[in-house]
């Protein structure tokens, strides 16, 4: 009856107490082990740091030894490697400066065409080609008004050197024409009436000008046509004078037309301000 029930309860309580003790012991054990792991990790880090330090000291000693001994001309491997890297970089720089350089990629080649005009380096343009199954242009940064597709259709499959050379000619000529037009606007804006009219390819320029900046009128009117896209000098230079201008000025139009066809734009304008020209 009641007593047996009480006994049972007592037994249960005892069991629970035992279990609780067990779990407490286990937790304690776990904590101890964790603390031990932390200790060991700290030790390991300290030892690692010591090893690193020792290695550095050893290397340092070696360095001192080799450079301290006079006459021992044994450059370390590292110095030789650095020299090799520098000379390769210089070689690649030379290739870049020639105007066309390339690098093999995992699906083909990537070419870089750099443009220049009379010693000034201008923009670079890139072409990413795949070579299998046939040569195709994957991506490029060539401006849209350069006839890239036409050149590719003609030469890309058959003669890639010719393709690159033709493209380089187009890009360099465009860069040269644009450079001349920019120079004219920057340096001789006082001799131009307003801005000069140009187009995307810079192959047609129209402007009114005078020969020295002091005058207020712009008696001359020029239209330069660059018929050959691979050249940076005009194929046609139409110069005219306003109707009411004095005859002395009107006579010069032929000479100006000739100068524009021979010299770069900014050089042409420089020649206009030379002593022989300003004799009016």
């Amino acid at each position, binding site marked *: 009856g009641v007593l047996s029930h009480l006994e049972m309860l007592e037994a249960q309580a005892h069991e629970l107490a035992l279990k609780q003790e067990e779990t407490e012991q286990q937790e304690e054990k776990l904590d101890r082990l964790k603390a031990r792991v932390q200790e060991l990790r700290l030790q390991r*880090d300290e030892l*690692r*740091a010591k090893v690193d330090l020792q290695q550095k000291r050893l290397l340092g000693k070696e360095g001192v030894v080799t450079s301290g001994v006079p006459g021992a001309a044994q450059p370390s491997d590292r110095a030789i490697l650095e020299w090799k890297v520098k000379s390769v*970089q210089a070689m*690649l*720089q030379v*290739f*870049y400066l020639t105007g066309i*350089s390339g*690098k093999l*990629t995992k699906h083909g080649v*990537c070419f*870089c065409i750099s443009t220049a005009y009379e010693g000034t380096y201008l923009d*670079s343009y*890139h072409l*990413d080609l795949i070579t299998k199954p046939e040569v195709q242009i994957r*991506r*490029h*940064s*060539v*401006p*849209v*008004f350069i*006839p890239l597709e*036409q050149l590719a259709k003609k030469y890309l499959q058959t003669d890639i050197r010719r393709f690159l050379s033709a493209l380089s000619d187009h890009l360099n000529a465009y860069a040269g024409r644009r450079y001349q037009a920019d120079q004219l606007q920057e340096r001789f804006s006082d001799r131009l009436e307003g*801005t000069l*009219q*140009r*187009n*995307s*390819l810079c*192959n*047609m320029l129209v402007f009114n000008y005078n020969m020295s900046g002091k005058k207020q009128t712009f008696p001359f009117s020029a239209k330069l*046509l660059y018929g050959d*896209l691979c050249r940076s000098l005009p194929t046609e230079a139409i110069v005219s004078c306003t109707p009411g201008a004095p005859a002395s000025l009107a006579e010069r139009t032929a000479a100006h037309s000739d100068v524009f066809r021979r010299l770069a734009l900014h050089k042409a304008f420089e020649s206009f301000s030379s002593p022989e020209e300003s004799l009016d």
Partner: protein
Amino acid sequence: MDETVAEYIRRTVLKIPRDEIRTMLQTWGFLSEAQLQTLNFHQTKDNVSQDVVQLCEDNSADIKQAAVLDIIYNHIYPNKRIWSVYQMNKTGEEMDFFDLTDFKKKFKRRLRSALKNVTINFREYEDNAIWIRIAWGTPYKKPNQYKTSYVVYHSQTPYVFISASVLRSTLPLLCQALVVASNYHDIREMELRSHCLNSLKDIVFKRYSQTFQTYYPKPLQERNVAPENVDLRIIQENRNEKERIQRVNREVFGDGPQPKLEFAQYKLETMFKSNPKMDVLDIKEPFRCLVKFSSPHLLESLKSLAPAGLADAPLSSLLTCIPQKARNYFKIRERKGFFPGSFVSP
């Protein structure tokens, strides 16, 4: 001065932010500097616009001059309109010099021969961009200056940027006039639209930053060299993965800023592939669905997905091909062949 012109000028001035009114009027050049001095720009915009209209009345402005002010406003704030890109084709190889006067004459003549009641204005800018503003009328009504289309064309390129007005019916006329004036044969609309005109130009003119593999040494910018005295107890478990993601991202997107697009839309006409027990699949038809990605700056957000851990690198080529293919509207159909997949229609 015409009532409609006065009202048009008044409304155009009201659109301009207060700080910009003076500069824009100066660029316009229709009012003299002395007249501009008499204006008080600190009063309410309503009053400023009334004063400007009064001055224009004194100078007898007509609709052509008012239209120029509108072009100037739209040139400075092009992002208020949606722009579409059109591509023109020509079969010949002749190089033409592009005579601007010839272009303008041909355009006006062609457009006017189809519809007499139009107001056409041109304005050229330093970057070889030609802006054309057209206000449309009907055969029996004068041009409505509030229903305008804008065209931006760079000479000697096959691309035209058009911001059409609500009158889509006038588009064929406009396209034909452009083709004739620029000596091309035909024109088609590309699947490329955005509010940001300069970004559209960057994409088709290939002015955005692409990475090309070259030997030319570029300055090493973002190589984060970890400082030597970092706490040894902090270990970056997936440093290799992080670096791989950065490298792949840089190869795909380049180092510079991305062109600004607001959305990319994919129309899927592919078969639904899933658990065969679902009833939906009994119908052997393509499952049509439309996926649209919107963002204030879509390409920048795509670029930051992988480094932020939100997507695997490399991203799907459907997303990364957008600037390269110059399109942000795609149709994806089932690829018929040995390997089931999807292919993008041209």
